[in-house]
């Protein structure tokens, strides 16, 4: 392919490098304000930059909109794509793989952890109703789903995983303020470790719209799903991880 691998942002002409930026600075809207905004824009690489909107918000803050050209190049060869390392299976294939290779139902225990009460995302993956036209894991005959709902503590989840003999623990985290989602994930990992000791712990899968899908190592979990995840992706992953590679 002779597609270019290095590109620039595009306003209305190839190579023009145009981007739009907005931000607030904690300064009054005075003579310096625009210059301060330009300084920030410059540090972000906008040159020339054009401050097109300045709005004082109360006596101590000013909001800016800036347009400008950046010289930064985007090298497509350097982009790491999170490739799905497993094939996307149909419900039939998922059920078949579990039956033929696991030889029993696959058990998942799901919960939204900590003080987070958002269940829509978790339910989208677990409930029959599903998401984006795909049925959730409950719909798969060979998957047994225990949906603990929201506001579940890490120890409660770990205990349930043990008692249900879970193959996989699925947690959802939507509130991210002060990195709540990261802290809660750590708590789950720690709780599972103390519940299972040296025994083989279940797969840990976390999901939520603000997770970085490449962060599993940092989070010490097996897999991270981000925004727009569909149930089929999760089912296919579980089969891949728990029921060996399909033929």
């Amino acid at each position, binding site marked *: 392919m002779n597609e270019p691998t290095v590109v620039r942002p595009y306003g209305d002409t190839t190579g023009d490098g145009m981007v739009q930026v907005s931000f607030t600075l904690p300064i009054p809207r005075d003579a310096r304000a625009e210059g301060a905004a330009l300084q920030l824009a410059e540090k972000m690489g906008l040159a020339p930059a054009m401050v097109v909107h300045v709005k004082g*918000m109360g006596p*101590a803050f000013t*909001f800016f909109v800036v347009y400008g050209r950046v010289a930064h190049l985007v090298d497509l060869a350097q982009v790491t794509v999170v490739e799905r390392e497993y094939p996307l299976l149909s419900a039939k294939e998922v059920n078949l793989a579990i039956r033929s290779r696991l030889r029993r139902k696959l058990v998942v225990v799901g919960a939204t952890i*900590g003080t987070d009460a958002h269940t829509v995302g978790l339910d989208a993956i677990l409930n029959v109703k599903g998401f984006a036209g795909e049925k959730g894991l409950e719909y798969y005959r060979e998957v047994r789903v225990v949906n603990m709902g929201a*506001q579940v503590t890490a120890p409660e989840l770990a205990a349930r995983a043990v008692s249900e003999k879970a193959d996989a623990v699925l947690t959802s985290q939507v509130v991210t*303020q002060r990195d*709540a989602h990261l802290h809660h994930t750590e708590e789950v990992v720690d709780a599972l470790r103390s519940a299972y000791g040296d025994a083989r712990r279940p797969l840990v899968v976390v999901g939520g719209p603000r997770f970085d899908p490449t962060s599993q190592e940092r989070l010490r979990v097996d897999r991270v799903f981000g925004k727009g995840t569909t149930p089929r992706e999760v089912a296919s992953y579980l089969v891949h991880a728990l029921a060996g590679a399909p033929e």
Partner: protein
Amino acid sequence: MKGKLRLDPAVVRRARALAAKAAAPVEEMARTHTTVSIERSVLRLAGIGGADAEQMPWANRLVDAVRDQVGLQQGVALPIWDALFRHRGVDLVGLAAKAAAGEVAFRIPEGRDRERARLAAQRAVEKGVRRIDKNRAERDRRIARLGDPAKPWIYLIVATGNIYEDIPQAQAAARAGADIVAVIRSTGQSLLDYVPEGATTEGYAGTYATQENFRLMRAALDDVGRELGRYIRLTNYASGLCMPEIATLAGLERLDMMLNDCMYGIIFRDINPQRTFIDQRFSRQVHARAGIVINTGEDNYLTTADAVDAAHTVVVSQLLNERFGLEAGLEPWQLGLGHAFEINPAIPDSLMLELAHAQLVRELFPDAPLKYMPPTKHMGGNVFAGYLLDALFNLVGYMTGQGIILIGMMTEGIHTPFLSDRDLALENIGYIRTAAGSLGADWHPAKDGVVVHRAHQVLAEAVELLERVVDESLLTAIARGTFGITKRPADGGKGLDGVVAHGDGYWNPATALLEAAR
């Protein structure tokens, strides 16, 4: 006058009658039970405050001690004021400390002792009620002096987690046009069976509701209100395990509006249904006295259910909230019934359907201020699309005469609001108000058009659902996932262990005072 939708008054009457019927057994339950939080509210009205070294409020310590020793079937007032007579020189906090140390033996006083305790408790609680009355009068005075903004009132949220960051943001919001500032609570607070103490700086996605935080924010809004020549209303959240206590603190610190729903805690926080229904009644009695406007939470249903499919569940819930509210002594002007603009913007005629829903609610509850919530569910990362959706929400709000408009944030799908998000949101509604505030007067939905048809359909579905609820009972309906497609069995959820049936001779000085006044 028939209204723009030509609703049939007979159908509307029938809907109300059904709601009353569905509510009756639950009201009876609420009248005959108490909860730990109701009992703690009695102590809070009597002036208890503070917490022990573990940050557990003295109110909890004292109620728990009574409960452990003599149970709550008679209420806490009699055993506690009885004990106070036997521990001279000790106040409530002192008693709580002693009780926690195992130094107090509670009993249910009888005869003259009982009468003595009753009188003392009543006097103590009266002080709190008088403070609530004074606050209500103070609010009226300030509004009279500063002037009340025209409706719809513009309602804005702050949610930094830190009361000291909240304050400047709230003041900025008021300066930029907010009439009402709400401080969102930290996630999880509603599941705490105690109210934290003191000024707090460490909440997740919100700031703890504490008496001290209430006080600080109240003072800050009074300041900025004076500066602006406009009374700025302060709002917080009652629904949760401590509904009665937070309602009490709101009255004591002159909050003006409180999120208070008869079912929100059940559906969205998995709090036990019985606990919630009992708590909500007491909390609303306090709000009634305090002149606080409640805001109900029907909007939330549309975040888990589809806004078209579930439109009638909103109406059913509003009728129930109305019924429970009136029974508890709230006036119609105190019923900020909730609903929302949550229809998928990709479906045809979505604005017509939103207009139908909003106008239906307006006509069903002509005296209620109505709290109208902005789009949240269909707000994604396209902030421009979000800004536009919020504008159309604002337009519908003006066209249908909503009383309280919660301002939508273009970044709803991304993060809790930035300062600039809020400022842009206020510019948005400011423009709609100035440019199109009077468009509603020229809006006359056609007799056989989409809007009228849809409104009638939703009302009919609501009546049908209410019939089912009456048949199977409200608690069963909730257990079956009627609201927010979330199933909550009557014995499930958190806090059931805090519910106690009144014994013979149960006495609660607060309820007595609040009910006597009516």
